[in-house]
């Protein structure tokens, strides 16, 4: 009986330890930027997981850096140790698609360290998908349209030149 009780107590302690360990990762499921912005008070100072494309430039500030992550709705700034982002190769702009990354960190509605910014202080970063250089096939339809427009412009100029020439001739006569 005593052994049974001891076992049960051990299990309870283990359960509590487990709960204690997973508590910070209560929002382990990825949360969208819309959800974060609409319920910022609920997520304030909690550990969250956010996912999206790294866009723009990496703004290095000493040992830390700012990266901006866009999940197709909003872009949120992430404050991260520079050593954690050394594997990021592409950041999104016109010519490139940025790396898709997963960020786990503390969400702040009004970050006291960063002048009230709505941001995430990252503890972990994982690259989900590498970015790439974007393809831009030449738009033949547009080029054909340019040719038509050039023809119209030159015809117009020709008509005006002839019109002015005839006008001047009439005046002379």
């Amino acid at each position, binding site marked *: 009986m005593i052994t049974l009780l001891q076992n049960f107590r051990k299990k309870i302690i283990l359960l509590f330890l487990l709960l204690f360990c997973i508590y910070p990762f209560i929002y382990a499921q990825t949360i969208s930027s819309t959800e974060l912005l609409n319920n910022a008070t609920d997520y304030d100072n909690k550990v969250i997981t956010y996912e999206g494309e790294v*866009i*723009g430039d990496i703004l290095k500030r000493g040992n830390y850096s700012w990266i901006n992550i866009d999940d197709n709705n909003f872009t949120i700034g992430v404050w991260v140790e520079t050593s954690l982002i050394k594997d990021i190769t592409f950041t999104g702009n*016109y010519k490139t698609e940025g790396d898709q990354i997963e960020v786990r960190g503390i969400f702040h509605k009004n970050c006291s360290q960063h002048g009230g910014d709505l941001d995430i202080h990252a503890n972990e970063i994982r690259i989900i998908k590498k970015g790439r250089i*974007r393809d831009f096939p030449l738009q033949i339809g547009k080029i054909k349209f340019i040719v038509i427009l050039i023809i119209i412009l030159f015809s*117009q100029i020709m008509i005006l030149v002839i019109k002015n020439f005839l006008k001047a001739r009439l005046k002379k006569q």
Partner: protein
Amino acid sequence: MVLKPQIIDLKIIGNYLGRTVIGLGMVMCIPLILALILGEINPAIDFVISLLITFILGIGLVGFCSIDREPRWMHGMIVVALSWLFAMFLGAIPLFLSGHYGSYLDSCFEAMSGFATTGLTLVQDLNHLSYAHNFWRHFIMFIGGQGIVIMALSFLISGSSGAFKMYIGEAREEKILPNVVSTAKVIWIVSLVYLILGSSILTIVGLFEGLPLKSAIFHGICIFMTAFDTGGFSPQSQNILYYHSFYYEIVTIMIMLLGAINFKLHYAILTGNRREIFKNIETVTLFFSIILIFIITSFGLKLNNQYPQVVSFFRKGFYQFISAHTGTGFATIYSEQFRSDWSTLALVGIIIAMSIGGSSCSTTGAIKTIRVGLIFKGLKQNIKRIILPESAVFSDKFHHIKDIILEDKHILSATLMVFLYFGLYFFGALVAMLFGYPFLESLFESTSAAANVGLSCGITKVTMPAVLKITYILQMWIGRLEFTSVFTLFGFILAAIKGK
């Protein structure tokens, strides 16, 4: 009896309109060159198409409406009103071709927002927009801030007495120099000097805050153009929040304030008359207005204890406030945060600030501080009249570059404009309410559009009704041109229909 406009009227209007359109085509060469330098082929193609369409239209108008007559006031006003509409339709072409806009209406909205220096945006996936297209969004703000017709006046309509009529039509009541073409050139020179200085400072700050050189230069130029012209577009979707930089915010605050000052005052200060800034009715009113309305906004922010720290209070509260008062529309918070975090009182403070704006003959929209100052002076004068004996003779003065005797016509004209602006603000709010938006948010967004500010509390979205998009376009257009030229155009159309 209303007289029907004659063919000759249409020819005069068409001719001057054509010259402005050609001017617009010429400035389209700048993003085209940028696209070629940066190897952005498809954007370059978009600009070639836009440029050709613009030239076809401009040359066609000038060529087929050739006439030697000088324009009258009516012609000047109509040319201005139409120039802005043409600029919107033509300036929207490269934006639409970029593929980053849901419809041509959305790109027209963006173009009008740019030219009118508003800053409300309907762009999609801005973070992947090409440098050339992105530059065009900012550049049209720079052109619009100085005035589309002023641009044409400077280069294409020189020596014409009609120039003055168009200058006035573009909501500029004061000449810096006796000749209006020289005035237009001075406005450009002052702006270009500030552009070089301001962009350099922003580039240095950008480098210091971790931007690579190419980005620092691009962002520096773009942000300067939209800050000085109190526009509010930004190269990235997060607006100024993208930089996460206190210094960038400080510099932009200074540029926004410079943009909100009268060009005539800039010229006075640059030519040595530095005391003018402390005496001028506009700067004095702006100073007091900033203090008083910020107190209201601060109380509003304190109500729900937003931004408890001094730094965050400054970077979020004061920054949005100055951005609103100068009519810029830069933001360091998300538009949704206005609704979720800011109290009603704080939002009312921002709405009042937006509705007043900056100085006349500056790049700001809205009522403008000189009118507010004049109305207060008029109120003071009326109280004096009641208190003093009826036989007492007195006159009041106000200082604007020189001492001017305050007359009833000044007060009347200022009051009329205030009423017209209030009407415009409430008209947009009413339309938004018809679509189910709450009153305060509708008024916020409408004031932002009509006062050419650009701050949004979340109504301006790609998904908003087309009627509301058109309403905001009209508000931006009418608000930027300060009614007269647009009303003249409406009168002209009415005369064409009903006249004999």
